[in-house]
């Protein structure tokens, strides 16, 4: 089922990906071709097949609830685009 421009615009918004009108045009074609490939899966009989989310049949390992890392905030914030008093700065969210 080919995608429409509206589909593509919605997906781009969900992915928080800015796209131009020209991008929308290209994505509509390219993504339809890729989904066409994916549609082969729809015909496969998978009744009673358990989904495989992960190659290892393992349970989540737990560890003791103790502090093992030190606070490296200053180091991590040296590579941030904008910070102030240990906070990350972004455009105003609430008026």
């Amino acid at each position: 089922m080919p995608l429409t421009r509206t589909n593509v615009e919605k997906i781009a918004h969900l992915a928080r990906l800015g796209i131009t009108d020209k991008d929308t045009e290209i994505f509509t074609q390219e993504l339809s071709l890729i989904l066409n490939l994916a549609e082969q899966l729809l015909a496969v009989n998978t009744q009673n097949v358990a989904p495989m989310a992960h190659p290892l049949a393992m349970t989540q390992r737990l560890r003791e609830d103790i502090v093992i890392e030190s606070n490296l905030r200053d180091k991590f914030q040296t590579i941030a685009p904008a910070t102030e008093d240990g906070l990350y700065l972004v455009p105003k969210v609430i008026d």
Partner: protein
Amino acid sequence: MYQQQISELAAGLRAKKFSCQELTRQFLTRIKHLNPALNAFISVTETQAMAQAKAADVRLHNGDSSPLLGIPIAHKDIFCTDGVRTSCGSRMLDNFIAPYNATVVENLAQAGAIMLGKTNMDEFAMGSSSETSWYGQVRNPWNPNKVPGGSSGGSAAAVAAGLCTAATGTDTGGSIRQPAALCGITGLKPTYGRVSRFGMIAFASSLDQGGPMARSAKDAALLLQGMAGFDPRDSTCVDQPVPNYVAALDSDIKGLKIGLPKEYFGAGLNSQVANSVQIAIDIYRSLGATIYDISLPNTELVIPTYYVVASAECSSNLARFDGVRFGYRASEPKDIEDLFKRSRAEGFGAEVKRRIMIGTYVLSAGYYDAYYLQAQKVRRLIADDFSRAFTTVDVIMGPTSPTTAFNLGERTADPVSMYLSDIYTIAAPLAGLPAISIPAPYVDNLPVGLQIIGQSFAEAKLLSVAHQLQLVTDWHLKVPPGLE
């Protein structure tokens, strides 16, 4: 010395034929001369390399016998390196100076290996040709008009051209094995969980695995020995002892049961590549292996399954790149949504965007069951094919890639044709299995890869099977013209 193997360089260092500082300097000089044409490195870490070399010389002087001590290597630019730009081939991380080391980087530094630099790659490891990098395409040392494969194309080209002795790579759908095949080197994707993913920038978390790229199976064994092991910082890293891979190399081929899946030798496989792979398999037969015809009936579903699963995981993993805490930020955003959308639009390249979009779509309400859940079920069917096959055979062999290296630009306009070049490599990561690519006879002066897939945690078996072929053949010793 540029084309020597790890053990030869280690012997030279210990015989004092050259110091590690001299060796490192020579490699750095060679990179300076040859890298502009190949573009295999994104960053050359000269200062750090010389400091590591100086420390290695002290350890050598003190009689330290670590096999990787003083050996010049390179890391794919997907592994975080403390204080060094870690770009993942993306504009998004062009300004990202990693604040910590990946466990693999840390382990190899402890072992005494010298990091010469960070290698070029497809952006966020998404690609099969190393053409999607923000830093430009990598060229194949065997023919500069051909791609080196991808996504670890920089590592493969660097090893093949003798710009480093070995390198790290990562494999999600073939990104170690396919470039190894196209550049004529040995590349191993370990079992999922064998090598820590901590500090390895995530693409598809249930598939990604780091591994060695080297001149021979023996060198790959040495490098894997230094990389593998339990890491409490990676919850999917398996707590299982690491065998001695080098000691296991000398196992006999006699009695080995090799399965050839009929689906790996059908339509789409270049006939010269098929002949080449057959010659290598015939040598195994002459060494005492038995060949079985087998079937992996769900092979035609591996590409659609992979592109649903990997894209879904990628769209989730790459959601973190939002221009807030690190990485690229668009200038003068008018609000928070504009900040997210433009940072991502300007920071990511076309292929990454395509995969984020596909992944977002297959995870979105109304499509999750039809695409994503269904792909996870088909993934189980694909894994079951292998379980069945391994009840009768020890290893599975076939071509790594259906063709030799293709021309630069040949497949960039058609994403689906690019995806199809991974037809034989995608199944192993979907099933979590280890697989190695080693050189087979060349076709028209271009390398061909023989792929060997094994059972979970059978890295030692794969390396020894590969090593036994390399003992009686010299395809892995071939050097690209002009790069001796």
